[in-house]
């Protein structure tokens, strides 16, 4: 048996023993474990599942052992993912630390920063949030204006962030700040700080779906120790872009596609109905088929990209943008088609007279409108593809 097959064998046995049966069932949004100081677990199984996975570093399987990660090469990471999928294991931890901040800290952080900040991410002890967008800096992110001044032994930060996902629940923030006003991209730095620091205030934003996954974050005279600057002063834009790439890859591969709730085909069969094995509404049937085919091809593309392993630079950036554009449009289409299948049952906002599944589908549909905005709008990602993948010239 070669090394990989050996690893598959021992992994399969280990998962058989250590992954509780209840962690092999579909997970609703409320059951997601986000970790952090104020972590809540939906069950003791969920708590145990995170603990045993984190002990092996398998919440971050590719990160080096010395920072708490699993130390696995790409081939073994792929095997681990296959084995987890095989038993339909829930992800033990959802985390912006794992998906976004950790990968850039590994690349750009100092040794001391990596040793201090990475292990608590692996174990799910610290929950991170992303201080990127500002009221005046959305798609044009590099025009951000949150001021960060050098006060000798510390930085002093003043400004406002917006669309900070779960800032009200997070323990630490990674944040883009302006350290030089004379130049646009070259005047941005990447800092991190504890959300308990004096002067940090968060205010949830109510969305059209009724939920508040995003916040406004106000920063007033926030003192940040100088060793919490990541990378060089005024060198934050490179880190910011790399992190966005990880965010887009992750949004595409994980978040949009796996929404719990009604399956589109089941809903079509149940609410629209079949005649001689075919959906009664033939126009809707054609549109669902077209969507499902693109969706299947997208999943195949993600699988193939995973198997291809790491790629660098321009290829990685355009791949992340390609997948982000596709994933956002597919999830929005799926939500629209689901609501259409549900008909009257998809119009409920709350209360009696509507099924829980129907109400959830309605809220998901409204929430999905953000998919083509968050993490870089579809338009910005098409710009990235045009430039990086297709080599088209910048607008003059």
């Amino acid at each position, binding site marked *: 048996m070669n090394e990989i097959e050996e690893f598959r064998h021992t992994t399969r046995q280990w998962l058989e023993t250590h992954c509780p049966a209840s962690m092999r069932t579909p997970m609703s949004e409320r059951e997601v474990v986000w970790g952090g100081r104020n972590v809540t677990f939906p069950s003791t199984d969920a708590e145990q599942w995170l603990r045993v996975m984190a002990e092996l570093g398998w919440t971050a399987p590719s990160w080096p052992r010395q920072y708490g990660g699993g130390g696995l090469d790409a081939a073994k990471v792929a095997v681990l993912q296959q084995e987890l999928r095989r038993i339909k294991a829930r992800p033990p931890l959802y985390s912006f630390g794992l998906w976004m901040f950790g990968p850039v800290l590994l690349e750009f952080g100092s040794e001391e920063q990596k040793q201090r900040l990475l292990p608590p991410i692996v174990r799910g002890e610290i929950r991170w949030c992303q201080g990127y967008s500002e009221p005046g800096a959305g798609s044009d992110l590099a025009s951000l204006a949150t001021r960060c001044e050098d006060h000798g032994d510390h930085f002093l930060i003043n400004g406002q962030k917006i669309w900070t996902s779960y800032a009200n629940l997070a323990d630490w923030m990674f944040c883009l700040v302006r350290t030089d006003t004379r130049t646009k991209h070259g005047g941005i730095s990447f800092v991190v700080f504890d959300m308990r620091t004096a002067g940090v205030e968060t205010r949830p934003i109510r969305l059209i779906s009724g939920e508040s996954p995003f916040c406004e974050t106000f920063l007033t005279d926030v003192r940040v120790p100088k060793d919490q600057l990541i990378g060089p002063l005024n060198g934050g834009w490179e880190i910011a872009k790399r992190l966005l790439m990880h965010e887009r890859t992750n949004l595409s591969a994980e978040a949009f596609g796996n929404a719990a709730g009604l399956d589109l085909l089941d809903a079509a069969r149940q609410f629209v109905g079949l005649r001689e*094995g075919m959906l009664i509404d033939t126009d809707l049937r054609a549109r669902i088929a077209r969507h499902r085919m693109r969706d299947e091809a997208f999943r195949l593309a993600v699988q193939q990209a995973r198997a291809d392993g790491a790629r660098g630079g321009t290829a990685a950036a355009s791949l992340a943008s390609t997948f982000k554009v596709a994933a956002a449009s597919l999830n929005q289409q799926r939500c629209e088609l689901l609501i259409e299948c549900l008909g009257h049952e998809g119009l409920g906002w709350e209360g009696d007279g509507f099924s829980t599944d129907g109400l959830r589908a309605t809220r998901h549909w409204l929430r999905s409108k953000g998919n083509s905005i968050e993490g870089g709008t579809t338009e910005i990602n098409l710009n990235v593809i045009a430039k990086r993948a297709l080599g088209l010239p910048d607008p003059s």
Partner: protein
Amino acid sequence: MSMNSDQQMLEDSARQFFAERSPPAAVRGNRAAGRSFDPDLWREIAELGFAGALIPEMYGGSGIGYRGLGVVLDAAGRSLAASPLLQSAFIGAAALLRHGSPEQQTRLLPRIASGELTLALAMDEQAHHRPEDTRTKAHRVGDRWVLDGHKRLVADGDSAALLLTLARVEAEGSDSDCLRWFLVPATTTGVTRQRRHTVDGEGFADIEFAAVELDAEAALGGAWQDVIDIACIGVASTMQGAAEAALALTLDHLKTRSQFGQLIGSFQALQHRVARLYVDLQLARAAVTAALDALDGPGDANSEGQLQKLASLCKALCGETLHEVSNETVQLHGGIGMTDVHDSGLFLKRARVLETLYGSSSHHRDRYARFVGI
């Protein structure tokens, strides 16, 4: 599955070979010469081992496999190269490998691998691809078969030596279970073929079978459906290459054509159109790759249900993407794209033929919908 280094090398050399030896402009050369393909090109393709790509070495093939030959079809599609590669090396060889008797394989495969014997899939009979409605009949007379019927627009039907013909064996019933493939030498008495000039200039023919007598060994065994699925996957590979090449042609234009004092490729309205096509192409490519890998894979990946679903998936996705790309190629080139001297039109014409071959995108979406139970 990702490409291994052998496949990567194969891709590079195949693309280089077709780009140099048979660029899109060669379509005009064939048209002027009044031929559907260049026999010298086919000989060179065979010498490179591509004609025997699916065929094991024991039969004189190179055993590159489906993914490998898919890469070559993609390269041929990229330059719109006309040759028996798809019909003979991909579809014909696959049908014999899966359903041929040892005797048929020993007799025919080495000649296919050398490029000397070419095949063509004679299947469709009407305006649309409806194999289950096949009317061509085969009946037994003693220990021989007799074929009667008519086939419409057989690709390579004007030149192939052996016609892989779908016919209904009447004695065995009337439903689609009694369809079988027959190997019909084109020179058999009662076979008449008439070249039909299609928009893409390739070698299509209508074929009549009038009391065509065949040996008992002319029938292939086994199921008939998988040959069509394989044919669809081969066409999809070809379409993927053609679509990527048409987009590349368009990008070249956007990067060199100036209006209003700037390159038109700097206009965001145009950038977003081609960027969306690029996204669609990545999805279509993933579908073709998965289908080719399934053909190379073990029995379970390659199970009938899975193969049918992947075949329809890639045929429809590559077809609709090529459709969009070929239309945009003409539009984004502006006036020059409407002229015969420019390659845009060659891509457009080939696109429609390939989209229609073995079931339109719409046909395969319908089929996919049935597979997923709606």
